[in-house]
Each structure stands twice: as structure tokens, then as C-alpha cells.
């Protein structure tokens, strides 16, 4: 019985994890094939159809239309694209940066450890929302700038996590054995220690994806939008909010979409945690 097979066994018998995986998969598929599965792909652009504005859900517009008469279902599905881009943008930078800094701090110790962990602690003390608002005010209040702000802070969580794992792994005999066999620090960091961190990193990254989606929606709800008319979930909720409670369908679909994607990534992350049997 290999470890991979035992992990898969635990994962496949965990209904929550399977549901999470299916949700995440469905979000990815919907985002990728949005033009094919949505009824009005042109509504993503600057289409205005005032005769049909604020239309309630019907067989043509499954989730109704917004104040410009655009199909909400279509725009929600396309909204996943912005959310996933944000997830990708934030994590593709902050995860590797955090992992490398964490490993360096944990393995080299001494001043490297003091500086990196000290700096990490300072950055952790900054509330991301405040940081995003500050950067948004200095630069332009766009979602890209806000996410840039999140990226600036986000690596710290990975640095901490990987640091902790590295400290425990670095004391193992196999690290000393590799050193005695002539391995250099680059080999030890990336070939010996990193593979032992992959499990925690992937669990944390999956859980992060949920948080970034939620955070991105929060920021765009607060006005850090993408350039209109590109649909994104947070600003769709912000737009529809003005017409509550009569035009309830305008916030329902984008709101549910945020919930759906966040839930999916969280369930998947918990499932991976059980599968890898790690603390993250």
C-alpha cells in the first residue's frame, strides 16, 4: 500500500472533500467555458438594453437582468473569471515567496531567521483591508492594485507555515546525512526540505483560494472594481444592493456564486488536510 493510495482512500471516503473537489472543478469549468455555456455572452461587454432592465428571473434570463438590462446569470459565470484571476495572481507570487523565505529562515537560522521572522511578524500585524485601502488611495483604486496590496501581505502566512515545518525537518538526520554526502544549501532547501513542505503548502494554498475570492469580492464591493463593463462578483452585488429588497435577484446570483466558490475551496482544503494528514 503506497502512501499516495492511502491518502486517496481517505480522500475518496470523505464526502465533504469530494463535494468540495466537484465544486472547485465546476467553477473552473464554468470559468473556462463561460462563452459556451452562457445564453448571452455579449452581455459581458457594453451592451445596454433598457427595455429589459430589472427583469425578474424568467426562462430567457434565468437569474433576471440588472439595471442595464444585462443577463445576470451570464455575468455571474463570467465573474468567476475575475475571481480566479485574482486567486492566481495573488497566490502565484505570495506562495513561492513565502515558501522560500520560510525555508531560508528555518534552515539557515541565525540572522536570516531573526530578520525574516521579525519582518514577517511586522507584516502580519498590518490589517490587509487597511493596506488595500491605503494602496488603493495612493495608486488608483482598482482591483488589481488592491490585490497587489494583498499579495504584499499574503506571503507572510506561507513564510510562517513553511518556517515551522522547516525547523522540524531541518533537525532530522537525513538533512545532516545529505550535507555529509556533499549536498549544498540549494539542494537541501529545494530537494530535501521542500518536498516535505508540499503537503502543508497545498492545503494552505487551497484554503487561501477561498479567502482571496472572498476578499476580492469584499474589495470590489467597497469600490475597488475592475474596469466596467467587465463583470466581477463583488461589484455586481454592490450594484444590485441599491435595488434591494424589490429586485432581490440582482444580488442573489453573484452573492451565491461567491458563497459557492468559497465553500468549494474550503471543503477541498479540509479534505486535502485529512488526506495529507498535516496541520496547516
Amino acid at each position, binding site marked *: 500500500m503506497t502512501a499516495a493510495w492511502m491518502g486517496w482512500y481517505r480522500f475518496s471516503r470523505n464526502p465533504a472533500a469530494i463535494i468540495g473537489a466537484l465544486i472547485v472543478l465546476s467553477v473552473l469549468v464554468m470559468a473556462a467555458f463561460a462563452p459556451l455555456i452562457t445564453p448571452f455572452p455579449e452581455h459581458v461587454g457594453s451592451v445596454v438594453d433598457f427595455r429589459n432592465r430589472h427583469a425578474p428571473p424568467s426562462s430567457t434570463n434565468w437569474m433576471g437582468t440588472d439595471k442595464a438590462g444585462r443577463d445576470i446569470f451570464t455575468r455571474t459565470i463570467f465573474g468567476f473569471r475575475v475571481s480566479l484571476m485574482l486567486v492566481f495572481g495573488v497566490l502565484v507570487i505570495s506562495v513561492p515567496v513565502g515558501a522560500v523565505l520560510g525555508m531560508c529562515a528555518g534552515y539557515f537560522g541565525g540572522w536570516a531567521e531573526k530578520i525574516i521572522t521579525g519582518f514577517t511578524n511586522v507584516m502580519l500585524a498590518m490589517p490587509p483591508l487597511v493596506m488595500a485601502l491605503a494602496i488603493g488611495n495612493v495608486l488608483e483604486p482598482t482591483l488589481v492594485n488592491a490585490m497587489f496590496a494583498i499579495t504584499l501581505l499574503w506571503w507572510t502566512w506561507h513564510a510562517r507555515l513553511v518556517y515551522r515545518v522547516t525547523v522540524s525537518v531541518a533537525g532530522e*538526520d537525513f538533512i545532516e546525512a545529505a550535507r555529509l554526502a*556533499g549536498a549544498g544549501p540549494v539542494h537541501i532547501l529545494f530537494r530535501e526540505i521542500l518536498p516535505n513542505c508540499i503537503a502543508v503548502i497545498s492545503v494552505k494554498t487551497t484554503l487561501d483560494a477561498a479567502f482571496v475570492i472572498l476578499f476580492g469580492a469584499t474589495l470590489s464591493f467597497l469600490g475597488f472594481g475592475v474596469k466596467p463593463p467587465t463583470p466581477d462578483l463583488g461589484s455586481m452585488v454592490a450594484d444590485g444592493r441599491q435595488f434591494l429588497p424589490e429586485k432581490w435577484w440582482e444580488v442573489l446570483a453573484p452573492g451565491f456564486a461567491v458563497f459557492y466558490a468559497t465553500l468549494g475551496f474550503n471543503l477541498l482544503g479540509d479534505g486535502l488536510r485529512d488526506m495529507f494528514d498535516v496541520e496547516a
Partner: protein
Amino acid sequence: MALLDVKGLNISFSGYGQTRQVLHDVSFSVGKSERVALIGETGSGKSVTAKAILGTLPGNASVDSGAIAFDGLDLFRQSMAEREKLKGTAFSIIMQDPLSSFNPVFRIGQHLDDVMYHADRRRGVVSSARERKARILDTLRKVQLADAQRVYDAWPFELSGGMRQRVLIALALLHRPRMLIADEPGTALDVTTQDEILRLINRLVDDEGLSLLMITHNLGVVRQTADRVLVMRHGVIVEQGPLAQVFDAPQDQYTRDLMAAVPPLYGPGVTDQPVSDMPPILTLTGVQKVYSKRGLFKTGEGHLAVDDINIKVAHGEIFGLAGESGSGKTTVARMMMGLLEPTKGKIAVNGTPATGARRLSQIVYQNPGTSLNPKRTVAQTLAVPLAHTEAAADRQARMEELLTLVRLPVSFLSKYPHELSGGQKQRVAIARALAAKPRLIILDEPTSALDVSVQKTVIDLLLELRESLGLTYVIISHDLSLMRNFCSRIAIMLKGRIVEQGTPAEVFAETRHPYTRALISAIPVLTEAEQAQKPTVTEEERAKFLVPTGAEVSAPAGAAE
């Protein structure tokens, strides 16, 4: 009628969609005041047997058939509550690991009182705190913890390993059980402490007229503590009989192999390794190591780990460094490797690394489970040293050659450590050390994590490799019976100093230092003949050089590390 009667026990475990039978038709009995030993190696099912008796089998275990009767009472027909009541009063278990069996945030007395309080309540006895304490202090005195009151008030970390093991025994005795089940007692402790613990258990069994079920893999321990022996393998009892009969004339091939795998201490079976007359490869002169205290507030001087070490290791010899935990043997080994700088003294190396090799020496660690990276295949592990010693084109061939050298199939190159057994992992670790082309290999307790039968094959392999590759070994170990047969010269360390040095034959025949005598006399041996040849230790010497027997609360056990 026997006190404990196990009949046709079949137990299986299920997990990951599979079911595996771990006990096959196990039947045996333990009479009143009888001492029975259950011998087996890792995975033989001996602990499962104990758990079945105690009623602490894990949830994925199922009893397929069979019965266990205690004093005529069929245990499997009792309700949960009734079985709970039996724990501690009918039988109790002496746990194996004294170091991790206590919750560090509770005092010793609290641990004991909790057990007593709940056991009393289960039996419907009303007891006052004061009366319970009196009973607990009585029990502590029974396990030779003379200053019971201080032990009662002590925190777990304040007691040495031996004292904690005594408290665990007291815990088992609290409710005057009729049978003790001892699961490898003292294995985690030094040999001298283990010896004391075994004497104590024997005395308690005699004095109180208890029955004993001793679970162990150490045949020497069995000889000391059993009247009857059960040998278990892969969940089957392959042999059982009175101690003398099984030990003198083992019937089953497995029993015979087990006995043969135990290195003898005295007698005709002992091997004398030839002494090397070559020039020294490594010379330590007046070496001292002080671990200084680090941190913001440096106070006083540090901890003196080793002092005045003078060792000459000749080319081609097997030099043994023996000592108990905290004796400083690991510190010496690390200084020999160049991993630590001595505070004082000189370490001279007279040898040049082989062509392509980066260092003169390599190390084989005690625990192959932690010395191989779990996320890297055997090939990836071996590739690290080979990157320096071989040209890229030759590496694959060299890997296959190395695996053949350590008697592993070439197909193992693509395996991960968790797919290998302990002995196989240790062979891979040896192959990794060889790959770096060392002249000197430091063996840090290379077999102590392995089963006896595996131990022997690894030792034989090491001897062969030394012969064919012209290596020099330094082995550090606490296992003197192994060192007697494996080393060409040994040094005995006590509290950071070498107290005795010479060929094993000399040291074992003419022990000069009382500590060495105490160490040798504590080793569990297989035959009466060997027992008779062991040096004797006076009570005075025992008190001077061995761990305190519990008269006082000593410094934290970890302080000497």
C-alpha cells in the same frame, strides 16, 4: 485451573478497505503465580494479544473467534462496564515508555490519584482524598521509591527515567491486581536501569503472589523473568514450553534463529575480532567539549559534556565506544566526524579522502526511519553523494552496484522509504554512506532500532563490507553484548570520561572499573553459564555508579544530554 485462559483467539484488523488477520488461533494460559513470557518481533501480534486481554483493542480490530477467560469469567461476554471494573483489579498493564506516559502539567501524585479515584468510583467504593493518598504512598514504597512523599509531589520532569518507570509500575499495582501484564518494561531505559526494573518486577511478583505476562522481544529479559515461554511469529504461537526446555532445546526453527541471533557475552560462541596493527587513522588527544549556554543572559560556565578523551583508532579496526545515555559518546562521535569543534585538545586525522570523496568519514544513524528523507526515492538519496564521486554517466551503474553490495535488489532504486522494512532502510543508509567513498564510517547505534534477527544480518553485512572495502568503523552503542563480538577494541564511557579501554576480551575478562562491571552484569544473557561468568557488583559500587534507586529526587533526566 489457570488464572488466564486464552483459547483459539483469531483477531483481524480492517483498514483501507482490506482485512488482515493478525492473530491466528492463539491459545495459551497463565496459571496463578506463574510468570509467562510472550516473545516476538515487531508485528508478531504480541501487543495485540495484550490489548485483547485488557479490552483496549482499537476500533478497527475485530475478534473473529476464540475466548479469553479470566478466573473462569468469559471476558468477551462481559458488558463494557464489567470489563472496565476488571481493569486494575483483575489485571493491569505496566506501560512501556516511562518518558511519554505522563502528562507534564500534572504532578505525579495527581496521575496516581486520578486513577485511584475513578477506579474506586467504578467499584462503588467511597474513599476520602487522605485515605487514597495513604494507599498511594504505600504503593510507591512498594516499588522502592523510598521518599514516597517527595515523589508524590514531584513533577514528571523531575524524575529520572528509572523512577518514572517505577511510578508506572506503582500505577499498575494501585488496586492490587492478580495479574500484571508488562509490555516491554524498561526497553526505553539504560541497561543498568532496565536490570533494576526487572529485579523489582520479579520481587513484586514473588512477594504479592501475582501472575505475570511479560511481553518482550529481548530473550535475555525472558530468561530472568519467566517460568514459561511463548514464542510468537506473524500472529501464530510457534512454540511454547517451560523456560529451560525452550531455551536449552528449542524445537521450532524460528526460535532457534532467534536464539542464534543474540550475540553471546561469554563462552565458545563469542567472536574475537582481530586487532589492527596499522597506524592510526584518527587520534584524539586530551579532547574536551563544553556546551556553552547561549542566549541573552549568559550565566556561569556551560555544561561539560566530555573531558580528557584519548583515543587512537587504527586503520581497519572496529572501535567501540560504549556508554549509557548522557555519557557523552555521541558528542565524541560528532567531534570525530568534524561536526563539532572540541573546546580543548586535538583531533588528528591521518588519512586522505579517496579520490573524488569530499570527506574521510561518513555516518550511519541509529534510526533509519529518520535518516532517509521520506519524500525521496532510494535512487534520489543515493544520487546525492554520487554527484561528487562519480561521473554522470557512471552513476546508474554505481547505484546498482551499491544496492548489490548491501544485498538489496536493484529494483529497490525506485522505492520510497515507507515501502521498505527497518532492516532494508538501514541497508540503504549504509549504501548511502558507502557511496561517498569513506575510509571511516561512524556507526551510531546502527542496530538498536531493529529486531534481533534483522540486527544480526546487518552486523554480518557490516563485517563483510569492512573486509572487502578496507573500511575502519567506530561504533557507538550501549549494547555491550553486540560490541563484545563486533569490536576489535572498546572504550567504556561514564559521565563524559573514558573509564576503561582495551580489547573486548580483556575488558570482559578482567574488568578494572566497577562501572564496567555493573554494566556487564546488567546485560540480560541467554544461559546460566554466561550468567555465572558475569562479574559481580557490590551494593556499594551499585549505589556509587548506577542511577539512584529512587531514594531522592534527582536532577531532570534530560539535563545530561
